[in-house]
């Protein structure tokens, strides 16, 4: 079974700083990582390959340096890596991104075999949109299974797959026909450690590098800024609230009990209606004699 995993190289957003004057992201020195959600997708793909045989191809769209993330994926055990990179892709929104990736997927299918399963993470940590997976599914006409918590069963011979998908208030158990696009939920599995063999292989591996033309994209108006219906007009920092925090315990050495009593007073002074409502609804069992 040939499985493709779409990954993205993202800045480690925990370490991002915003320039205080220009409100721009200071990327310098910020390390990049594989989008953490994509690792759940990659691990799931590797498990299926280990079980059914076949190959795992990782695909990314990004600048040339995104090759680092592909090599990391190879070190985890992926068999092949494809980097789709071209200046025409700069400024792509989710619609343009899903177009480019879907064209690369088509080409991957032709070159290395049609994948019955394409994986992505549920979303990225820099964009947070969760839109690229569904976009690819639609463009490649794959059955879409998002927020998958667990793959229940795969039957390659019958071309069927069953999954548990996170929905409001519970898990939906779905059965679908492959080819499918699956976006994996966090916590679905735990990424394996790469083997020494994989690490050595990854360092030496040839990463397949495709331009827009290589991926068979003729219509460049569907790429990058030109192919993006959404336009970022303004980027700004969240405004600080005018009201300053009120410190409840200013006295040195006051006891927890005194602090707690002062806090309760302060809360109900600030929000008298809350007290009325709480008395109606909260902690009935705390009524004297209620125990």
């Amino acid at each position: 079974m040939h499985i493709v995993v779409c990954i993205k190289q993202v800045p480690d957003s925990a370490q991002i700083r915003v320039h205080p004057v220009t409100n721009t992201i200071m990327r310098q020195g910020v390390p990049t990582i594989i989008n953490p959600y994509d690792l759940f997708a990659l691990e799931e793909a590797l498990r299926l390959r280990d079980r059914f045989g076949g190959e795992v191809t990782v695909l990314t769209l990004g600048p040339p340096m995104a090759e680092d993330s592909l090599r990391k994926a190879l070190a985890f055990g992926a068999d092949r890596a494809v980097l789709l990179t071209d200046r025409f892709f700069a400024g792509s929104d989710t619609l343009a991104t899903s177009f480019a990736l879907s064209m690369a997927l088509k080409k991957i299918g032709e070159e290395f075999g049609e994948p019955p399963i394409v994986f992505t993470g549920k979303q990225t940590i820099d964009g947070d949109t969760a839109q690229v997976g569904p976009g690819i599914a639609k463009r490649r006409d794959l059955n879409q299974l998002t927020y998958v918590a667990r793959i229940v069963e795969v039957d390659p011979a019958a071309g069927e797959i069953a999954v548990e998908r996170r929905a409001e208030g519970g898990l939906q158990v779905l059965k679908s026909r492959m080819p499918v696009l699956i976006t994996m939920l966090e916590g679905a599995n735990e990424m394996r450690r790469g083997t020494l063999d994989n690490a050595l292989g990854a360092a030496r591996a040839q990463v397949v590098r495709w331009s827009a033309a290589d991926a068979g994209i003729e219509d460049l108006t569907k790429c990058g800024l030109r192919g993006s219906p959404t336009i970022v007009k303004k980027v700004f920092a969240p405004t600080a609230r005018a009201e300053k925090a009120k410190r409840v315990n200013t006295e040195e050495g006051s006891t927890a009990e005194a602090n707690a009593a002062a806090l309760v007073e302060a809360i109900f002074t600030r929000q008298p209606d809350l007290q009325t409502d709480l008395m109606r609804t909260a902690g009935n069992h705390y009524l004297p004699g209620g125990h």
Partner: protein
Amino acid sequence: MSNAPKPAPAAGAGRASTRKELPEHFKAYRHVWVAMEMEHGKVHPVSFELLGEGRKLADKRGVELAGVVMGGDGEEVAAAAIEAFEHGADVVYTIVDPILTHYRNDPYTRALTDLVNTYKPEILLLGATNLGRDLAGSVATTLLTGLTADCTELAIDDEGSLAATRPTFGGSLLCTIFTLNYRPQMATVRPRVMAMPEREPGRRGRIVSHDLGLAEAEIVTKVLDFIADGDSGRAALPYADIVVAGGLGLRSAENMQLVKALAAVLGGEYGGSRPLVQKGWITADRQIGQTGKTIRPRLYIAAGISGAIQHRVGVEGADTIVAINTDPNAPIMEFAHLAIVGDAVKILPALTDAFARHLSVNRLAS
């Protein structure tokens, strides 16, 4: 890549200023729509929040506000339509078909896409829930239009351009996004970000029913089962009036008990920061913040939480934010309304007692 953090925002801004004249056939796109979310016969509250927000946009534009209700049961759909009217909709488009009994991407995408192509809304809003994001991505790609995810603010100009503001880079920046040359303009909004509109009982409007025109045999994805969450409090967190949350400052899983005890006395829900999920002290559904739940309680008590931006964006809608932290310079001390410098492990039990005493004393007095 995504629709938010463009590598070069300046390029996006440059392009935005070169607005093309809207193509003639796009001028037919009018009105503001909310795709209502229904699971198990009930409307998700985010749909009402969106109707409230949609009402403002529609009024500004002088157009109609419509709800879209799709489902398998005619009575449930009719009841949801009435709720839509009472929350501000002028029109409700309905599709009733057994195929739509449970959410599945394929038939729902078909249904909503058909409605859009038939009735041409200028703006289409969905909840940024798993269902809404799953559906919105497919519909926008089918229609080849712009979609902005997880907006926190929506505004509209005189020409009908939607200004959709959303957090980016984990909440450290906000960006405002337009879809100038494509229709409809689509956006998703997380639950609890917009205020719930006042309900007007008895308010009614027009129902326009539509057929799905699909046979079950055409749909390859089947729903085999639904495993409901055992812990019923999970789903309630975003809608709780009182939320008490813990962070790494609690130091041990056992001390989560202190948070739960206070939440119980207040009749509220408990949650926590992301590291607690990673440590297994709380379940993922109780994570509050950018990658967890957005909450909008009347009272939020954060014990031993530093208040990193990713946490902050999930709690900012709270009426009163209370911080308990040993570090007077923790970021949360900046945006909390009330703050106590001290050890949460000692203050939480004292606070639980103080609330219990206060509430029962006052109850006796009243």
